[in-house]
């Protein structure tokens, strides 16, 4: 029998070594695998290269990983946010390297790695400073830049639900980079709210088939979901809003 579930986040991230390239899903807070990142911090791996759209915000997840000094390089499209103080400080103090990649090239380069594409010609960034050092080619009258795949040792992803075969479904815009990162890493680790029985996911609606997934861990229901229904009263960080009621307040 195939069983990709692991009992806890520590087992899920076990073996991530110093110097590893780690893809981290999420767009802002949506789809960011905060629990896996916390576990990665506990593992203690250093000199990591992080591939992610953002470089973290606030004091949790990716931001905390950077604050703890574990990151050597960030490959991302948009590190600067109103609350990206940990990245900002590390960058200004030259404690980490930044490879800035336009978001579409980032996504397509990750997909290319998963799809076995050697390189591709992208129309994005032609004539801009981010074209520097890139091979240029005119095809059918239009100029393109040659872009190479981005592979990773590990991908850390957050989904809504998965089965023991590693089939994953996501929720709304928290899907974002998860499905492509799952294809581009040697080891793909997915945290989900819930592990469901094999057969519970609609085969027409599986977004990440189990072939791309190595480990699945359940981290429990998020505060804003209950009985498959959205329950309001939280802000974008998932913290209860002022006046959202005593029970929500009690969870913070």
């Amino acid at each position: 029998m195939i069983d990709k579930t692991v009992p806890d986040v520590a087992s899920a991230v076990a073996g991530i070594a110093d110097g590893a390239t780690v893809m981290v899903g999420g767009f802002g807070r949506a789809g960011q695998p905060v629990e896996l990142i916390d576990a990665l911090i506990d593992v203690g791996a250093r000199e990591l290269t992080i591939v992610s759209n953002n470089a973290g915000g606030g004091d949790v997840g990716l931001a905390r990983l950077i604050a703890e000094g574990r990151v050597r390089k960030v490959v991302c499209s948009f590190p600067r946010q109103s609350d990206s103080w940990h990245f900002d400080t590390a960058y200004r103090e030259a404690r980490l390297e930044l490879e800035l990649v336009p978001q579409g090239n980032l996504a397509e380069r990750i997909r290319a790695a998963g799809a076995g594409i050697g390189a591709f010609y992208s129309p994005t960034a032609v004539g801009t400073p981010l074209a520097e050092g890139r091979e240029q080619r005119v095809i059918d009258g239009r100029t393109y830049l040659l872009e190479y795949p981005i592979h990773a040792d590990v991908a850390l992803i957050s989904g809504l639900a998965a089965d023991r075969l590693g089939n994953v479904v996501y929720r709304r815009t928290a899907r974002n980079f998860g499905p492509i990162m799952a294809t581009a890493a040697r080891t793909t680790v997915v945290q989900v709210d819930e592990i469901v029985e094999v057969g519970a996911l609609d085969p027409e609606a599986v977004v990440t088939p189990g072939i791309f997934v190595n480990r699945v861990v359940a981290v429990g229901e998020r505060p804003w979901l209950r009985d498959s229904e959205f329950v309001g009263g939280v802000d974008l960080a998932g913290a209860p809003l002022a006046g959202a009621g005593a029970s929500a307040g009690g969870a913070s």
Partner: protein
Amino acid sequence: MSDQQTATAPRASDDRHAQPDRLDRTALAKRVAADISNGAYVNLGIGAPTLVADHLPPSSEVILHTENGMLGMDPAPAEGEVDPDLINAGKQPVTELPGAAYFHHADSFAMMRGGHLDLCILGAFQVSESGDLANWSTGAPDAIPAVGGAMDLAIGAKDVYVMTDLLTKTGESKLVASCTYPLTGVGCVTRVYTDRAVFDVVGGRFRVRELFGSTTLDELRELTGLELEMFDGA
């Protein structure tokens, strides 16, 4: 669509917050929204362009794309109904319309770069006469660079409209002969909506499509330092 333009422009300049010679941001968002066709697939960039979503005419059905993986986005939720899994490219909470669809980032940018979006509306630091766009970096040596999806949007949509004040806070024209800031895209902008006027990029020149309030063509020439003509409709 030209009916809508005629109808909207006076309304916008009557706005009680507007200066006599220019539109305020809300009025400008209304003005841009009025030009969006029924059935258009549109991406609204971070910042001011996001406001356009709140002013789409009820008579038309416009499908909003957000590059973080959704078509059929609706503006902000009611208080207490924020869903952290449902955000736009600016990471603000949004809602879902019936008929929406979710997809991953590679599919979302394939949609954009494959030329399937009818329109995207972006902010700008500078737009040149040849339609070059600079909106991601001022090139300041100590700035932390961040580009997001701006470069993909700039080259992807069938039409790229810019929505911006004509002048910077220090009074320089954002419409320029050629951009001095780092470029986002080359020759990609087709129209610019500013607080003073609407400009089309035609054959390497800005053509004034519409003047707002008391603004005159000569004023615009002076403010921009560019050779400007009225758009002749060709």
